[in-house]
């Protein structure tokens, strides 16, 4: 009992001390601007986390090599904290909390996919910390959340883009959808696509099948889809599932085209899917092949640094940091208290009406969502993503 009391006492002293320590830090003049990154470095889509981190490192080096970010006539170095959300919804909220409460970041970039961005956006909003999701396209990420912003277009825009393109390109009358029911992004986009396809009045969505995130066998769903004989299959899934779905559909005798969404756009899609994905189309945020201007400069530098073409999430992360930096400049000073600073950055973000990024220029609406163009790319016979068509709202 005595030992127990002793350890409790020690723990209390430690806690009190650490509280003093923390407050002691806060009273110092701020030396850096600390931004957190909530990224899927492991889990289902590690490639996405990696690409985002690479782009962020590049941005960080640019700023800090110049002595830091100039705010209110004084230069402050940036500090980026990367944390792994394992591509899980529950880990994403934990990471957001950790960044806010332990790391005391002034703003958060990420999570990337809607599956994590929707719950983590809630956490950031409740804790009054500005968050920008680079890649999330699900409306719920920012809906009624004044603290949450994004750099990508929305699924209510992407769904009709896919439907329009497919009806033109494949001359399609009927469509089928296979999606991941436990992924907010996939499910949301599938439903939006279904309603926008049916609104066109060309024909019905003949099959609307779902699967789970960890599933590896899709033959039963695909048999149902193929029996319904659609003109094309829409697959708003992550690249790892796309590779399996396309292969299994071909094994079951399907010869028609596939249409994908922005989650397809990773170099790993080609590595995992190979030739079977060639010749298919997907909608995305930008096309690396044939880019011009600032986009081209970014792509060339990224390729030189990491030996790979940056995918859309890398470019969007770059733009997200750009938007964040502009917000900090809008606010015009750096507070010692992160809570004060967060409030300022949020106001700075809300004040941005338009932004010229490497994924195109955009305007922001009242929800904090950008209004920008989408592109449709074709997977060429060399496995490159080639620009096919640009669709603007």
């Amino acid at each position: 009992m005595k030992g127990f009391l002793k350890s409790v006492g020690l723990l209390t002293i430690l806690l009190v001390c650490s509280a003093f320590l923390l407050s002691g830090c806060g009273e110092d003049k701020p030396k850096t601007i600390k931004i957190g990154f909530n990224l899927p470095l492991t889990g289902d889509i590690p490639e996405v986390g990696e690409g985002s981190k690479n782009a962020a490192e590049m941005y960080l080096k640019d700023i800090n090599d110049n002595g830091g970010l100039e705010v209110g006539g004084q230069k402050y170095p940036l500090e980026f904290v990367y944390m792994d959300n394992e591509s899980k919804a529950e880990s994403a909220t934990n990471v957001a909390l950790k960044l806010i409460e332990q790391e005391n970041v002034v703003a958060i970039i990420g999570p990337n996919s809607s599956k994590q961005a929707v719950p983590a956006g809630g956490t950031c909003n409740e804790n009054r910390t500005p968050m920008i999701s680079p890649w999330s396209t699900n409306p719920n990420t920012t809906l009624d959340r004044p603290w949450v912003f994004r750099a990508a277009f929305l699924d209510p825009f992407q769904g009709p883009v896919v439907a329009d393109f497919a009806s033109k390109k494949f001359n399609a009358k009927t469509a089928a959808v296979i999606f991941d029911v436990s992924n907010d992004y996939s499910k949301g986009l599938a439903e939006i696509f279904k309603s926008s396809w049916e609104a066109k009045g060309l024909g019905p969505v003949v099959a609307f099948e779902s699967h789970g995130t960890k599933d590896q066998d899709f033959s039963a769903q695909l048999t149902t889809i193929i029996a319904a004989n659609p003109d094309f299959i829409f697959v708003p899934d992550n690249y790892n599932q796309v590779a399996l779905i396309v292969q299994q559909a071909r094994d079951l005798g399907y010869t028609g085209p596939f249409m994908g969404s922005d989650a397809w756009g990773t170099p790993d899609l080609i590595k995992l899917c190979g030739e079977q994905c060639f010749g298919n189309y997907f909608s995305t945020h930008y096309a690396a092949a044939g880019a011009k201007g600032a986009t081209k400069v970014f792509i060339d530098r990224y390729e030189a640094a990491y030996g790979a073409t940056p995918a859309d999430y890398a470019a969007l992360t770059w733009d997200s940091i750009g938007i964040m930096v502009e917000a900090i400049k809008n606010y015009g000073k750096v507070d010692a208290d992160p809570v004060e600073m967060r409030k300022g950055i949020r106001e700075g973000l809300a004040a941005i009406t338009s932004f010229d990024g490497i994924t195109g220029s955009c305007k922001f609406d009242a929800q904090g969502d950008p209004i920008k163009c989408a592109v449709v790319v074709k997977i060429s016979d060399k496995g490159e993503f080639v620009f096919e068509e640009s669709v603007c709202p």
Partner: protein
Amino acid sequence: MDFIIQNILNALQWGSFYALIALGYTLVYGVLRLINFAHGDVFMVGAYIAFFVSGFMLGDTLGLSPTVTFLCALPVTMILTSLVGVTLERIAYRPLRRKGAHRLYVVITALMCGLILEYSNLAVLGASRLKFPELIHKTVWNIGGVTVTNLKVIVIVTAVLVFLFLNFIVTRTKIGMAMRGISYDKFAIPLMGIPIDNIIVFTFILGSGFAGLAGLLFAMSYPILEPFMGMLIGWKAFIAAVVGGIGDIKGAFVGGFLLGFIEVGVVALPFLESTYRDLFAFTILLIILWIKPTGLFGMPQSTKI
């Protein structure tokens, strides 16, 4: 009609993997009364071993043709994976058994071993997925609207052959008799002069070897490897083994195919949505266990295997 036959084929292929993995669970349980929760991850390790073995054989130093690679990789993968299983038994389960630990602790150890395998793989190879090379040139046969690939046929035939082989070993051979003996009475068997540790090692060789075989075939059918690929399928195969009556070879085989058929069936039925697949699948299994708690072929108490 071809829709139904197609789905039966789908179910047979998917059920084959459940059956192959469930057989490993059931063998170890039958002899040791130990639920080897690391088995799903031994299956994952098997798939990775198959990846590296076939990568090495296809590579520049040897440069074998894909078909030869498949034939060579088959035994090599099985042997290496069974070594993994035996190592697990040696360093994790045997010391506990020697100290007379309760079975519960060994089961927890098995769970931890599975996590260690997953995360050491994650630490060594990273989170990025691997693409398994094509070893058998795939041919798609179309018979009256039903499509089947040569790989599917190989998978289904292998599952049946493995079942027949294990059934033969356990029921018709001396070593099988020893295995059944241990399951009856662990204390009397050493007194009969049977080397109990050797029999247990043999059990692990069989179970893990066939997990390696399943890993190879799985990687060929679903050619994307990741460190957690064995988790869900391992759990489901365990449930299949329990439903079939864990400890019974026939039960694991039937249970595996049963689960495959239920999963595919729920998706294929036109009036059910695919969203409800796992919900319906496991409700059906729950009802089976409710009616027959020992599983389809299971017998109460210690007369298993």
